[in-house]
């Protein structure tokens, strides 16, 4: 029963997220509203960690599995991908490395700069 309640609690936040997504004219999907609301509820103590812990850990652990049906959709994109293969490969590989490196290095630089200022 504990797991059913945990799952229902998480689903309730998904539903709240869907309502916000339908009501607000912002380009933010239901999942992000739901994530933010659950975080606020945890911080405010409305939801206790033990009330979502196991099921959320399970869902996060199986994350890669959940992308498989979408990934298989590539089988219907043969023509588009054949035409775009070089820019697509560069976008997927080179740009991803560039973004990881930029975001990581900038974060690290600001952290070190703040630490140096405090010492």
């Amino acid at each position, binding site marked *: 029963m504990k797991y059913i309640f945990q799952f229902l609690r998480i689903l309730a936040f998904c539903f709240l997220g869907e309502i916000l997504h339908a009501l607000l004219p912002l380009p933010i*999907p239901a999942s992000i509203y739901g994530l933010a609301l659950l975080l606020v509820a945890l911080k405010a103590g409305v939801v206790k960690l033990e009330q979502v812990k196991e099921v959320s850990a399970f869902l996060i652990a199986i994350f890669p599995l959940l*992308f498989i049906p979408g990934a298989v959709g590539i089988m219907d994109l043969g023509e588009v991908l054949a035409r*775009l293969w070089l820019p697509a490969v560069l976008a997927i590989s080179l740009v991803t490395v560039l973004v990881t490196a930029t975001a990581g290095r900038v974060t*690290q630089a600001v952290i070190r700069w703040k630490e140096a200022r405090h010492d």
Partner: protein
Amino acid sequence: MTELLTQGAVWGVLLTGGAFALGTVLQKKTGQVWCNPLLLATLFILLFLRLCEIPYPEYKASAGPVSYLLLPATVSLAVPLYEQWEALRKNAAAILSGIAAGVVVSLAAILALAWVFHLDRASAVSLLPKSVTTAIGVDVSGELGGIPALTTAVIILTGIFGNLSAQAVCKLFRITDAVAKGVGIGSASHAIGTSRALEMGPVEGAMSGLSIAVAGILTALLCPLAVNLLP
């Protein structure tokens, strides 16, 4: 045989889970990074559907319950964030600067590719949101005149590439701080990259999860501006 299969209700979920389990076993056995369960499972299923001549929409419908869990799983990322709240609060300025820099570089690099390769508008728009979570990226692409199916594919391949390369990229660019690693991985390769960040450590995982949300929202806000700069 094929009809027997597709008339049943469970085959899509069973095939997805089975292929993923097989991929996981292969990764354990070989210990190779590129033997990624998501990548292997996708290839197995592609092969299976081709051999049995099952069209993709039929598989997609039968595997629906798997995709359905994406929403509650994304919402669940609030839990590691809550558990790492101190690290988040302490480094808020650094994290936001890092994510913003990543988003701007991503959009600028795709614009550059669009200019160099003379991409048509629909293709370029489909590539623009390639670093963010599918939930946001596909909406952005559709809204601005892209091809949502192409965006989905590019987003997932970006995630797999990010997942496979995360460790090497962090080493190459000497990113050693746990918070910085998480921000880099989550900003570039969303939830699929985040599953690697979670393996690196709890701080890496939580920061990567946070970056999915912030990078996604920033991209959704900046994409309409970037579209104006397309050739």
